[in-house]
């Protein structure tokens, strides 16, 4: 749904604000969808028409990307550029100017800055063995990339703050073993590209699922 897409987009922006020191912060969501943004204090920022965002792929002329401005929490503003025509496996050079003065510049490879949607339909069920749970999920649908995804599963018991973590590669299921009896487990999954062809940031955590042992 559009709501879900907007919520996922918002989460990705938060992840980058937390994880990425460089500016502009950029992420790809799919093969056709690349977003860059940066944050400014409302009081120090200018009007939209003062800024220009240009990008160029190796051996190409530079193009301009139209900007949008959105208010953000804590007296901040976010400036966004969204590209539909994207080139991967080639260096992309980005420059942001304000009134002719270069304020940000960055070179990156788009296929290395993916943030995926979190895994969907996380499902937990009991197994024939008592202290085991069967976990499965649906990977984000991305052509050419499903064999490059790795997952992190975190599971915690109700009272505890510390979770146990398992990493899973190239599979979308896991058996959790050696659990404690009579406990309510809370389980969440996140996904990332594996770093060989594609790379990026860990997705947001999936909505949690619960199961008692």
């Amino acid at each position, binding site marked *: 749904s559009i709501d879900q897409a907007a919520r996922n987009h918002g989460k990705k922006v938060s992840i980058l604000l937390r994880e990425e020191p460089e500016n502009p912060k950029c992420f790809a969501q799919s093969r*056709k969808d690349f977003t860059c943004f940066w944050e400014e204090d409302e009081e120090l920022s200018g009007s939209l028409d003062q800024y220009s965002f240009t990008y160029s*792929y*190796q051996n190409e002329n530079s193009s301009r990307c139209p900007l949008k401005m959105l208010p953000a929490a804590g007296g901040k503003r976010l400036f966004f550029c969204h590209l539909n025509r994207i*080139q991967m*496996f080639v260096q992309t050079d980005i420059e942001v100017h304000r009134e002719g003065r270069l304020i940000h510049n960055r070179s990156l490879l788009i*296929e290395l800055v993916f943030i995926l949607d979190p895994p969907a339909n996380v499902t937990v069920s009991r197994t024939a063995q008592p202290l085991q749970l069967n976990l499965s999920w649906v990977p984000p649908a991305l052509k*050419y990339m499903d064999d490059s995804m790795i997952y992190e599963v975190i599971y915690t018991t109700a009272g505890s703050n510390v979770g146990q973590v398992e990493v899973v590669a190239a599979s979308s299921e896991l058996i959790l073993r050696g659990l404690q009896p009579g406990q309510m487990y809370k389980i969440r999954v996140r996904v990332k590209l594996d770093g060989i*062809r594609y790379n990026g940031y860990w997705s947001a955590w999936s909505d949690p699922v619960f199961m008692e042992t």
Partner: protein
Amino acid sequence: SPLRPICDLRVLDHFIKEARDAEVAMKSCREGCSLSESVSVPQTTVDFDVWEKKNGLDQAHEVQSGLWLLQQALGLLRTSVTNTALHSHLDNSIRNLLSINAVLHSLHIQEYTPPASAAELEGTWRVSSATDLLQVHVNFLRGKVRLLLMDAQACQQDVS
């Protein structure tokens, strides 16, 4: 014996990792690691819409000519580099390119006849630094080569 098709993409992933190791080694190399003259290299860039509209033969041809260009370029770099640690990376990279050709052959992708000179190939450009060359090498393997192998007909029925 009939050649078994090599469909496990981890073969290529392994070469990609080694290509990246060579790139890292080159970046930290201080002496005896420059390219003596500029060399032709293939375009690495992939626009998926454009790539998907090409037919399989054109895709294969683009990959094979790119691999050939990289072989020539890395061969030249091998002769102009004197740093021994880099020699071993470059020898390995060149061997891996030959192995990739063998993988393509195992997938029944038509044999490639190299041109008399790189100038005959379309869509090439030139790099003049060793670091740029090794970056092109990695990006070419990660991008076009991997996409070609992924779609190989010979591996489509292979549901074991």
